[in-house]
Every structure is written in structure tokens, then in C-alpha cells.
């Protein structure tokens, strides 16, 4: 049986057994609005962190104070008041919807189309619910199975306490605290995220998904994920979900670090569908994410696959540092923007090791009044003898008020390295649309078919269950964009 199927069955069993689980309302102490060293001390104390972790956070904070937000992306970001944000256990604001009646009807329509049960709709929309599904019990079931294989999969806050040596060794080793404005902020204030450790020679027995992780509420804002794959190990990690999620926190600044040792392989798949806001973009999430993987060992491989359909603004460049000899980096991306959405996304492939290879397949789909930019760097360094990159960037325009942009950067310091870049821009033609309509498909189905055809090379990289949902999602994201 496929691991994911087992996973789903186990969840069903666990949810069946625990369907009467209620979340007890524990009064939490809340840190005040705004950011200061005291707030960071508060977070660290709340998490029962060791001294070194607090020092690390403070160091990051001091860097951050001196930094400025990046302004090179083709994004129009309204100014963010960092003193107006709750960095720990934000109380439900008066603006939070009290029932589904107060939620954007467009969002509810999408939930219905995706077939999401009512209670889950409420959770996703940020409506307070009495009884929620008890994720703790489910996660426990999985952790037992994973423990048998020697795999560690737990909240990062727990890893900091339980596996301090591993965390200390690797956290910040791929994305240094001072890497960029948002990663520094994340390093100072992250509240939770995932930690994964796959020991030597172990093939992780199931696809790991954040869905099954014990997670505190309101931790989506500054997530921190660290995945370590030791020699000859393998892990596939799934992040996100296809349902559009509302969140009171407008700013999301996550950091994900991957480390692949010799002959190890990490496959990281994301479906990002944070609330894009209403048609003017109001209320939408700003998703400013730093994701980077280090192929440290020879013949190691890191593969990023992302389907980005949500958020008002996306700033995201999952990258690979290819240090190991013959190491492999891959980036497969579908980015869909509609309405007033803006996305500036792509990758960096930094070739350091001899014979390293990278592949970039990016499919950008723009509709409405949106702007969609691919930005990518391929860098061949001196020691990257006989390294190769192949990049293909395709843009598809739907309608005539959107923008698609491709900004490739290429640096080669080694004459034996090869870089190939192909780019196309096309439109859904009226011919194609009419052909589908004539056969009886309605416009939405027709656009969905054509767009999914355009993205096929990327979609086939997604795990099966994810792929089916993601296809549906792409269709829904483009609704009302034609005609």
C-alpha cells in the first residue's frame, strides 16, 4: 500500500476515535503588540528555550534592526508597521469573523467547490469553533511509526529542547540569521514550525505533511522548518493545503532550511493558497518566504515543487546550494495570479561542486490585473567543473490587463559549465477556447484544462493526492478570468 494512503486511513481511524475531543480554553499570557528585546525574551521563555537559542534570536533581532526590506522585486508592497504586530499568541481581534455569514462569500464558494466540510471551513476562515479535531492524537500515531524507522518529526520548539545538538548544528547554517530582512525577522521571533531528521540510510516510510504535525494555533505567521537528511536517506515533505486559508496575520515570513548529505534526497512540495484578499487585494496575505536547501554531500539531491495560487503578495525563491560533487537541484513551479495579486517568485541555483546539475521549470499564469514575475539566478562558480543548468520559463497570459515578466540572472565563472535558458510567453487563444466550448465544456472547465495542460510538467512532480487537488485548485483560481 502506498504510504500516503496508509496515512489517510490512519487519520480516519484516529479522528473517528477522537471525534469528541475538545480544545480546552487555556488562558494564555499575551505579549504586547510590537517588537523589542523583551518580547523576544518573552517568546523564548514561553517556549522554555535554552540560553543559546535566546542569544541566537537576539543576535538576529539586532541584525534586523539595521536592515532594510528588499526593494528589488517587482512588487508594490504597502509599508508594514512592525510595531503593530503581535509576535506571540495574538488575541482574536474584534475584526475576526464571528460566523461564516461574515466571511467573504467568494471564499465560501471556493470551499464548497473543493468539498470542504463545514467545520473545517470555519477553521480555515478563522471563525472560532467550539469543537476542533484533535490533531495531537493523530500526530502521536504517526510519530510512533516514524520512531520505529528512527525518523524524528516534531515541532521545532520541541526539537530545540529535545535535540539541541542537532538544531544548534544546522539551524541557520543554510539561511544565516543575517541573510535577508525577512529571514532575520523570522529568526528573532519564530514561534513554531517543523523539525525533521532522517538518519543514515533510512527511507522515510511515509510522506511527511504539516497537516499531521502537532501545531499550536496562530503559528502560521513566522514558521521555521528544518529538515536534515543524513547519508543515503530519503524524505518527501508536503507543506500547505489546497483550501484557501484566512489568517488574521497579514504578514507571513517563514524560513525553511534543508540539508542533504551524501546520496541523500529531499523532495519538498508546497501548495500555497493563502487568502489573496478580495478583488482589490484587501485583506490578503503577504507571503515573504526564505527557502533554501544545501546539497552538502556528493550526489545529494534536493527538489522543490511549488504550486502558488494564493496570497496577495508573494516573495519567494526556493533555492539550492549545490556544494556536493554531482549533486542535483531541481525547481518546479506553477505560480497563478489573478485579481490584484502580485507574485515575484523563482529560484537560485548556486553551483559550487564539480558536475552539479540543476533543472528549473517555471510556469507562470497571470490573469485579471495581476503581475507575475519569474526571477531566477543560476550561478556557476569556479570549482563547478562541467556543471549544467537547464531553465525553462513559460508564461501564460489570460486576458489583457495582466503582466508576466521573466528576469533571469546568469553568472558563470567556469568555462566548462553549461547554462541553457528557454523562455516562452503565450496566451490562451480564442481558437483553443472555442474548440473546447464547442465540445460542450463550459468556460471554466475549458480554461482549467488548457492551463493544467500548460503546467503538466510541473504537476507530474507533485505526489498523486496533492496533484489531483492542485489541478482543481488551479481551475478555481482562474475562475471568472476569461470573457
Amino acid at each position, binding site marked *: 500500500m502506498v504510504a500516503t494512503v496508509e496515512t489517510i486511513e490512519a487519520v480516519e481511524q484516529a479522528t473517528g476515535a477522537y471525534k469528541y475531543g475538545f480544545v480546552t480554553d487555556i488562558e494564555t499570557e499575551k505579549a504586547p503588540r510590537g517588537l523589542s528585546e523583551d518580547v523576544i525574551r518573552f517568546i523564548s521563555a514561553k517556549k522554555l528555550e535554552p540560553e543559546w537559542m535566546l542569544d541566537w534570536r537576539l543576535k538576529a533581532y539586532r541584525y534586523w534592526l539595521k536592515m532594510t526590506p528588499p526593494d528589488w522585486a517587482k512588487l508594490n508592497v504597502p509599508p508594514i508597521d512592525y510595531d503593530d504586530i503581535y509576535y506571540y499568541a495574538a488575541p482574536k481581534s474584534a475584526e475576526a469573523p464571528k460566523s461564516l455569514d461574515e466571511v467573504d462569500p467568494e471564499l465560501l464558494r471556493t470551499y464548497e467547490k473543493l468539498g470542504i466540510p463545514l467545520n473545517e471551513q470555519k477553521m480555515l476562515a478563522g471563525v472560532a469553533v467550539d469543537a476542533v479535531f484533535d490533531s495531537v492524537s493523530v500526530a502521536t500515531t504517526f510519530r510512533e511509526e516514524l520512531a520505529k524507522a528512527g525518523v524524528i518529526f516534531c515541532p521545532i520548539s520541541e526539537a530545540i529542547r529535545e535535540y539541541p545538538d542537532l538544531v544548534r548544528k544546522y539551524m541557520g547554517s543554510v539561511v544565516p540569521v543575517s541573510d535577508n530582512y525577512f529571514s532575520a525577522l523570522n529568526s528573532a521571533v519564530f514561534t513554531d514550525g517543523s523539525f525533521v531528521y532522517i538518519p543514515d540510510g533510512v527511507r522515510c516510510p511515509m510522506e511527511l505533511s504539516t497537516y499531521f504535525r502537532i501545531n499550536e494555533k496562530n503559528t502560521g505567521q513566522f514558521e521555521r522548518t528544518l529538515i536534515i537528511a543524513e547519508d543515503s536517506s530519503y524524505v518527501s515533505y508536503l507543506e500547505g493545503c489546497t483550501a484557501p486559508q484566512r489568517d488574521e496575520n497579514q504578514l507571513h515570513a517563514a524560513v525553511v532550511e534543508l540539508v542533504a548529505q551524501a546520496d541523500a534526497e529531499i523532495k519538498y512540495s508546497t501548495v500555497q493558497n493563502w487568502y489573496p484578499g478580495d478583488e482589490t487585494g484587501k485583506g490578503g496575505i503577504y507571503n515573504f518566504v526564505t527557502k533554501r536547501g544545501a546539497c552538502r554531500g556528493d550526489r545529494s539531491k534536493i527538489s522543490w515543487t511549488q504550486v502558488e495560487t494564493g496570497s496577495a503578495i508573494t516573495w519567494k525563491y526556493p533555492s539550492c546550494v549545490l556544494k556536493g560533487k554531482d549533486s542535483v537541484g531541481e525547481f518546479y513551479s506553477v505560480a497563478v495570479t489573478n485579481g490584484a495579486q502580485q507574485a515575484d517568485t523563482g529560484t537560485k541555483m548556486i553551483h559550487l561542486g564539480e558536475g552539479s546539475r540543476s533543472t528549473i521549470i517555471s510556469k507562470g499564469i497571470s490573469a485579471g490585473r495581476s503581475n507575475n514575475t519569474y526571477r531566477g539566478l543560476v550561478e556557476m562558480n569556479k570549482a563547478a567543473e562541467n556543471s549544467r543548468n537547464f531553465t525553462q520559463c513559460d508564461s501564460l497570459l489570460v486576458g489583457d490587463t495582466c503582466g508576466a515578466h521573466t528576469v533571469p540572472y546568469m553568472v558563470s565563472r567556469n568555462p566548462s559549465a553549461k547554462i541553457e535558458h528557454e523562455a516562452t510567453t503565450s496566451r490562451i487563444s480564442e481558437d*483553443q477556447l472555442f*474548440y473546447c466550448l464547442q*465540445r460542450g*465544456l*463550459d468556460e471554466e472547465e475549458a480554461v482549467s*484544462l488548457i492551463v493544467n*495542460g*500548460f503546467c503538466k510538467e510541473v504537476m507530474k512532480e507533485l505526489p498523486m493526492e496533492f496533484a489531483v487537488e492542485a489541478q482543481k485548485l488551479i481551475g478555481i483560481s482562474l475562475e471568472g478570468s476569461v470573457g
Partner: protein
Amino acid sequence: MSLLEIKNLHARINDTDILHGIDLTIGRGEVHAIMGPNGSGKSTLSYVLSGRDGYEVTGGDILLDGKSVLEMEADERGRAGMFLAFQYPVELPGVGGMAFLRAAVNARLREAGKDEVDQLEFVKMVRAEAKGLGIKDDMLKRPVNVGFSGGEKKRYEILQMALLKPSLAILDETDSGLDVDALKIVSEGVNLLRSAERGMLVITHYQRLLNHIVPDQVHILAGGRIVKSGDKTLALEVEENGYAGLGDAA
């Protein structure tokens, strides 16, 4: 009641009037051919009937089963039983043929309030139809029309027609770009689909197609009007004398 009634149909595209009052009635089980020189409005007629965007009806009416289709979108007309075999079938890169065919069949089934077709059953159904048209499995696996030869594209159109079982089939210059052998296969496919329930409108420039698909009636279209109608011998007349002299606008 007739299957299709076209009444005094006027239509334009981009402010240019193309059809100047067409009257045509097709009954179930009948095959009508429309012949005409280039620019006479043949393709326009096929697009106006099937409801393509940009083709504006400025007068008259089109009735399918006695009901006007003018207010219906192209996809609604498709599901109501109209099928257009394209002169130039369109490529859909990355769109799997089977998925496309199944989506089209299911759209019709849904409209009729029936259950969607099961995937395995559908594959069997397609293979059975494809065999008669000389369509190989390999072609069914490729994206829709991508990398197909001219003949393959036309056979694929007929395959779709066989699967969708339209009440009215419009064949727009199905013979164009076909060699003699391909023409034979396609025509045989079409003839197998002739039935007492189905009407066909065969649009062509040349008479040769009508040797294979023998029409009940032939109409000559010139200058956006039907200038002459007759039985199959009219096509032979055109073959001999050309379109000249068949109407004021020809």
C-alpha cells in the same frame, strides 16, 4: 418538426456583413451539402450556427428542434447536440486526449442528468470507436491534436463526433488537406454515423467529398445567400461548370 431551421439569417463579423438572409431546413436523417466558392460565407455559417464569439447575428433565427439557439452560448449549443468538425482542428498542448474526450462526454451526460462515465468503461468505448477510424492507441495518449498529421486531425474530429453522438453534425471542409486514402477513411467514418436520428450539414468547396458522403440535398452558397438548391446532381453540375453563372454574386 425539423431538426434545424435557419430562417432569413443575417450575420456579420467585425462590422462586415457576411450572411445576407439564409433559409435552410434540415430534417432528421437528412444530409445536406453546402458548396460555394472561397469567401462565400461557408465557414462563417458554421461558426454562426455553433455560436462562436465575435460572430454577430443581425437578423433572422436559428432553431434547433424548434427552439431558438440565438441566446445560447457555444458550449450550451454543443451540449444541446450541435457538433462542429473543424476545418483546422486546434492543438491543446499538454491536454491529454483521453481526459479531454471524457470531459466532453461527461459534460453532455451531466446536462442530460445522467451519471458520468466510468474511466475504464470510457477507455473501452474510445478504443472501439478509434479502431474503425484507424486511430492507434499511441495517438489517443498524445495531447489533443498536438503533432497530428492533417489526416489524423480529421479522423480525430470524426472520433469525437462518434463519441458525442450529436443530433446535428456540421462538417466544415472536412476534406481539405486530405489525400485520397485519408478521405476514404474519414468519409466511411462519417457514413457510419448517418442515422435516422441525426442531421448533417456538409460544407465543402469541392464535389469530390460528395462522391463519398452522398447528400440528400445540395445548396450553393454565394455572396452570403443560397443561390441554388437541388439534389446530388447539382454538385456534379458545379464540378463541370464551376460556380460561375450560378447566381448573381458568384
